[in-house]
């Protein structure tokens, strides 16, 4: 009887998922309620987790609960620490959940809700979750080795080097892009800038408290920090209302960029306990709170989505970023569906802390499903805005016009009715001077979130507070990625430079720290500056570059996983990683080709450089803009070169891997796995 009920329940869940996905895919004309998105997402995730992840665990990898993990065999109370699966899931999720699943879907909403939502749900279940899970399992069986180490041992030495270089490249581009998102979110916004500036002394206080007063008491420090952050958000409205303070905190994009560059350098060079660690604790705490609030808010309010299923911009002429829905929807969504960066987390601390191999399904596959759900919520929040408002916020002034009236006319001409007064009123209601030309996704997401939060608690009178709370959350979140990423990049540079000059490799030698921090910050700072100066907003160029780099790293991870599966002798199951890998190669190579060679200057870097060169040659550029134009030409060629290098490296790895696979399948080469020895666990079931 119990079995019959279980079967009936799963049939109901499958039907729910099919109905939800069907409503999203086929409903036209009427505005869709967010409830359908929740049903489609949750039901699909349940089915994927219950059946597909179970298949991966039992048939493909044959996870063995009796096999001792490195947390048991190498337990040292520091790095290798057996951890309860719920706690580990929380840590792993906090590590993988970044701004990507929030910003990517918001930007991809320019195509309408349909392509992005389908990719978020199905791409995660069949691609992202598979990548995270397989790399986690592979790393567990190799005593927690990193992706680069596994690539070197299982694929080729060159594979390992490519993985390391890809990580460094993606780090630089990622940091520039997320910094640009903050610049776009906070420029000309005194309330937002004040709130974010306040997070620095709050973090410093927390740092001193955790270092000297109550070492390691993270929860109490985070609670206190959170309370101070809320105070900063609320008091920002008084700063905004004061002519003096408002002027003091109204910073241009260029000023913000310089401030963020200085901050990044300081966070990398200063002791980790002073700024970086406390900010990280604070942002992890705020992240969890906000995601729970957002999920609860969407369930409570169930907003109606104003954005259509598909917009005219699937044709590639979108104002937010140029490029057709294929491949750019997938490149833009990036982390919400599949993220190469996750493979670094899955082969970082998580495999050293997992108690049983069988927990990898819950931690690796499950955490990515939750991240995908965050992406779906972001898509809902963005699409709950009226399309006119969405495009007014996310379109650069260079396309829609510098004034509210010009933007309203342009956007109305696209078929999305908008009048200037609506934008002026909305800006006033959320406590901003203007919401025009606030590209990058963060402000529009904040407006969408604020509307959902205020629909749950507080109503219209708290809209401004909720908006700035959402902006603070996004900026805090992003700055944590920025400072942690800069620090990791600094260590990578020092590791590399130490081979040439030993002192540079010493992480406790101050000049070495400053030089390497300067190099990393200089690298991403350059791309950030480029984006800030770009008349098309910067996101148009940089986000696709980030998406391509991220998806290429995912390709590297899936190549490693496929090689390992073949070496295990499970050729009949290689498709589980081969299929998403093949898809990613198609998407990234198409996107790379188009970003470099497309004849539309809004898409192709070289076409843009040619147009600017022609304008220079014809004298169409005013004298005061000649130097800037030369820089823009150089930057476009640099972006093209970086794209080609990344794509080329990964193509080399894929070709090498294919050679390796053929040799394994033909048995002309021994399939040697570099796993740690099998040891039976000493822990009885009751201990776990």
């Amino acid at each position, binding site marked *: 009887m119990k079995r019959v009920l279980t079967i009936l329940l799963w049939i109901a869940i499958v039907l729910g998922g099919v109905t939800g996905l069907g409503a999203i895919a086929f409903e036209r004309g009427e505005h869709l309620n967010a409830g359908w998105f929740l049903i489609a997402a949750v039901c699909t995730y349940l089915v994927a987790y219950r059946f597909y992840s179970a298949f991966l665990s039992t048939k493909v990898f044959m996870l063995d609960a009796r096999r001792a993990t490195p947390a048991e065999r190498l337990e040292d109370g520091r790095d290798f620490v057996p951890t309860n699966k719920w706690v580990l899931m929380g840590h792993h999720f906090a590590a993988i959940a970044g701004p990507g699943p929030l910003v990517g879907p918001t930007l991809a909403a320019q195509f309408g809700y349909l392509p992005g939502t389908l990719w978020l749900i199905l791409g995660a279940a069949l691609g992202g979750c598979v990548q995270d899970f397989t790399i986690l399992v592979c790393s567990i069986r190799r005593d927690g080795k990193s992706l680069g180490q596994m690539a070197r041992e299982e694929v080729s030495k060159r594979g390992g080097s490519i993985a390391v270089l890809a990580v460094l490249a993606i780090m630089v581009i990622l940091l520039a892009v997320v910094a640009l998102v903050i610049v776009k979110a906070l420029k000309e916004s005194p309330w937002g800038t004040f709130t974010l500036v306040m997070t620095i002394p709050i973090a410093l206080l927390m740092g001193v408290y955790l270092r000297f007063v109550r070492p390691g008491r993270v929860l109490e420090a985070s609670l206190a920090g959170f309370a101070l952050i809320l105070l900063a958000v609320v008091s920002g409205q008084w700063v905004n209302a004061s002519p003096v303070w408002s002027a003091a905190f109204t910073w241009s994009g260029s000023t913000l960029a310089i401030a963020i560059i200085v901050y990044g350098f300081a966070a990398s060079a200063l002791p980790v306990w002073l700024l970086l660690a406390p900010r990280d604790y604070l942002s992890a705490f705020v992240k969890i709170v906000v995601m729970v609030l957002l999920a609860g808010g969407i369930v409570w309010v169930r907003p109606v989505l104003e954005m259509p299923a598909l917009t005219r911009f699937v044709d590639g002429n979108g104002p937010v970023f140029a490029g057709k829905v294929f491949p750019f929807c997938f490149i833009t969504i990036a982390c919400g569906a599949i993220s190469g960066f996750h493979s670094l987390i899955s082969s*970082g601390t998580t495999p050293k802390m997992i108690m049983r191999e069988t927990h990898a399904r819950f931690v690796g596959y499950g955490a990515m499903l939750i991240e995908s759900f965050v992406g779906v919520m972001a898509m809902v929040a963005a699409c709950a805005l009226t399309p006119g408002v969405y495009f007014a916020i996310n379109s650069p002034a260079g396309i829609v016009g510098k004034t509210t009236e010009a933007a309203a006319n342009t956007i109305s001409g696209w078929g999305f009715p908008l009048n200037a007064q609506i934008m002026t009123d909305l800006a006033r209601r959320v406590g901003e001077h203007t919401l025009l030309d606030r590209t990058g996704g963060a402000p529009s997401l904040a407006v969408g979130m604020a509307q959902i939060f205020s629909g749950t608690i507080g109503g219209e009178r708290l809209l401004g507070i909720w908006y700035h709370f959402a902006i603070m959350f996004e900026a805090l979140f992003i700055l944590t990625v920025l400072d942690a990423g800069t620090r990791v990049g600094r260590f990578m540079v020092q590791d590399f430079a130490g081979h040439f000059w030993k002192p540079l490799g010493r992480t406790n030698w101050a000049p070495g720290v400053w030089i390497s921090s300067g190099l990393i910050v200089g690298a991403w700072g350059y791309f950030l500056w480029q984006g800030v100066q770009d008349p098309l907003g910067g996101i148009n160029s940089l986000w696709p570059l980030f998406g391509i780099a991220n998806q290429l790293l995912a390709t590297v991870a899936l190549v490693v996983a496929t090689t390992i599966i073949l070496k295990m002798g499970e050729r009949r199951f290689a498709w589980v990683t081969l299929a998403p890998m093949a898809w990613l190669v198609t998407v990234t190579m198409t996107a790379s080709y188009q970003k470099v060679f497309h004849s539309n200057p809004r898409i192709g870097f070289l076409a843009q450089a040619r147009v600017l060169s022609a304008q220079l040659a014809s004298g169409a550029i005013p004298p005061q803009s000649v130097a800037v134009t030369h820089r823009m030409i150089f930057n476009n060629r640099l972006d093209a070169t970086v794209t080609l290098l990344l794509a080329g490296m990964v193509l080399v790895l894929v070709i090498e891997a294919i050679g390796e696979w053929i040799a394994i399948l033909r048995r002309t080469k021994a399939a040697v796995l570099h796993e740690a020895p099998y040891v039976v666990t000493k822990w009885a079931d009751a201990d776990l």
Partner: protein
Amino acid sequence: MSGDAAYDVYVRHWRRCGAPEESRRLLTRKEFYLERIQQRYRTPSRCC
């Protein structure tokens, strides 16, 4: 989940298994906290 118990876990392990070769004495709570966060932020720990 906050990691507050990490030092207690370390102490329990140290008392059960004795000092590992590279560390002859039990770290204080302050030393342990500092060492942990320095180790954590050497490698990618926060995703995009």
